[in-house]
């Protein structure tokens, strides 16, 4: 139950006063409550736990993490080639 996964918000609508969204998890779609990510817009990725988005994925930070890892990989390759 604790495994949260990222999915892409496709639509948002109000239901009984709560913002609800359709979220696409690589083809599998689910109804998700977006009350806790008021800034989320269609196209954004959110992390979902038990039907609730608890965080929006920050695209810039995601890229920064990967850049650090790629730089490490480049360094390793250069060392191996040297």
């Amino acid at each position: 139950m604790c495994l949260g996964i990222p999915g892409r918000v496709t639509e948002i609508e109000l239901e009984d006063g709560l913002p609800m969204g359709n979220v696409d998890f690589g083809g599998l779609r689910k109804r998700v409550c977006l009350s806790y990510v008021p800034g989320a817009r269609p196209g954004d990725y959110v992390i979902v736990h038990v039907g609730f988005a608890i965080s929006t994925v920050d695209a810039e930070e995601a890229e920064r993490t990967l850049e650090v890892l790629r730089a490490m990989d480049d360094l390793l390759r250069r060392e191996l080639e040297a």
Partner: protein
Amino acid sequence: MKYLDEYRDPELARALLAELRRVTTRAWTLMEVCGGQTHTIVRQGIDELLPGIRMIHGPGCPVCVTPLEILDQAMAIAQRPGTILTSFGDMLRVPGSRTDLLALRARGADVRVVYSPMDAVTLARRHPDRQVVFLAVGFETTAPANAMAVLHAATLGLTNFSVLVSHVLVPPAMEAVLSAPGCEVQGFLAAGHVCAVMGWTEYEPLAARHRVPIVVTGFEPLDLLEGILMTVRQLEEGRYEVENQYARAVRRDGNTAARDAIARVFHVTDRVWRGIGAIPASGLALTEEFAAFDAGRRFDVGRLVVREHPACLAGQILTGARTPTDCTAYATACTPRTPLGAPMVSAEGTCAAYYTAGRRRPPRSGGAS
């Protein structure tokens, strides 16, 4: 899938392992707190690739630490006529003192699996003549959802919806691990999604007081390797700070809207953890304002006598003192289909993680460990 596949790249994993080998000069012992992280580490065999670094699996499996008393109480409620007991799927096979919810369902009790606690609220609206009870367990990650279910039921004026709450909090459990005599943990990977909700300020005094680095870490293989690398770097440099590996999902103050809802619906209370015992200020219970939604008050089930399976080492598994392969019942009497203890039930439990990864008990030869 975006934000998943990139963090599983084997090339980058190799680079991270090479860097780990370069910076590690001595043996270190780390603990990953969260069961989701345990699952990835064991499944990918990450713990077996680390250079002299031992990973102890922490108590972060919500199914595993939910106390027997609560399970037995849920089962007693489920057997009352006119009741629908709802829960996350994982909870159905967790052995209670005498039986489990799945067995009760087979015998006619109305026990239903829901994906979200909001589904339980919907059920209550659809069945005004029945009492719908949601077994609200889990860590800080499920607390916002459970809080919203109660808030929403209150807004709708539902009188046939209630929750049986047994929420647990991670930082007090880390404190308990660190304060235990003979604690071997030198650094922590903090659970990324718990921090997505709560932020990481609570960990700063913990890191300072116990002089342990704590790195907020994600769940994919590269996240875990980078989290381990960041922790080891701190240890090698003699630092003990809180750092955030999982920056794409976690902000320092967490999710303030979610924290506000939790603070409105719940208050901090002492809590018994299955297999571990009572930990002060380690759980959440409903506040007086929402006491009307407390299933524990609504349904008096009398005094329950609880009993664990005698073979089960769950307590020692949860604190990292033993591994599943130390248990004589592991993979013989106890399997995911026939769990004797809670850690064999969900994917987040250490015993189940070992079992699905095909880990075997070492052949018995002169005191094998």
